């Protein structure tokens, strides 16, 4: 069983290595990272993730059991990071080893959707107001017409 809620950085390569150490025909790993989304407050520069740790681990473990039962998963990785994550850092890794690719893809998709829906983890955006160019002061007509800048 590999479920984890931790403030330590996540590496998809480590999840892949863990899954590759098991016997299985098909492995699917998903890695989700902080995007520099634009919001009303500006551009996201970081996300603060928090979890209610005990119930979060219990629900991750329950998801793993469901993946084993429903998709025949032989090994499951469910890792979520908490704390302040900057743009580009990995927030979540979901990985699964199954007999065949159809189940592995279905299980991977199931696990990330369920994780987002039922595991007590929250994010708060930290945004930076995007600087917009100030309106230019009006210029004498002669100058704006006269200067022949290409492009």
């Amino acid at each position: 069983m590999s479920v984890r809620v931790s403030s330590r950085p996540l590496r998809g390569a480590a999840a892949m290595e863990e899954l590759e150490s098991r016997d299985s025909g098909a492995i699917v790993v998903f890695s989700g990272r902080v995007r520099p989304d634009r919001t009303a407050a500006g551009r996201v520069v970081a996300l603060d993730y928090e979890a209610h740790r005990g119930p979060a681990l219990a629900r991750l473990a329950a998801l793993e059991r469901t993946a084993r039962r429903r998709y025949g998963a032989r090994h499951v990785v469910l890792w979520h990071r908490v704390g302040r994550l900057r743009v580009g850092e990995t927030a979540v890794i979901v990985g699964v080893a199954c007999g065949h690719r159809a189940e592995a893809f279905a299980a991977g998709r199931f696990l990330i959707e369920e994780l987002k829906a039922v595991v007590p983890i929250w994010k708060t955006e930290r945004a930076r107001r995007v600087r917009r160019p100030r309106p230019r002061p009006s210029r004498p007509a002669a100058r704006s017409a006269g200067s022949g800048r290409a492009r």
Partner: protein
Amino acid sequence: MGSKLVARPTPRVRVLLFAAARAAVGQPSLDRVVPRSGVRVDALLQQLSSDYPKLAPLLRSSRYVRNGRYLASSRGRVRPGDELAVHPPYGGG
């Protein structure tokens, strides 16, 4: 002196507030005095909604965890010493 009454701790429930619920209240937890026989969760939430109007809409969309276990219904009770966590809608991943 002379009294047979022993000091007993005031009976409280600790309410844990996560994410938007914490922001609405301005602190990560609240201690609420409850009767020694406990109180129904929905009654407690009603009190919290009155005391913290910003919290009210969140409470309607939240899930509740009592002592680490999800509550199936807000008709359950909390008793002194219990911990009730308020879980606004999740947003992991």
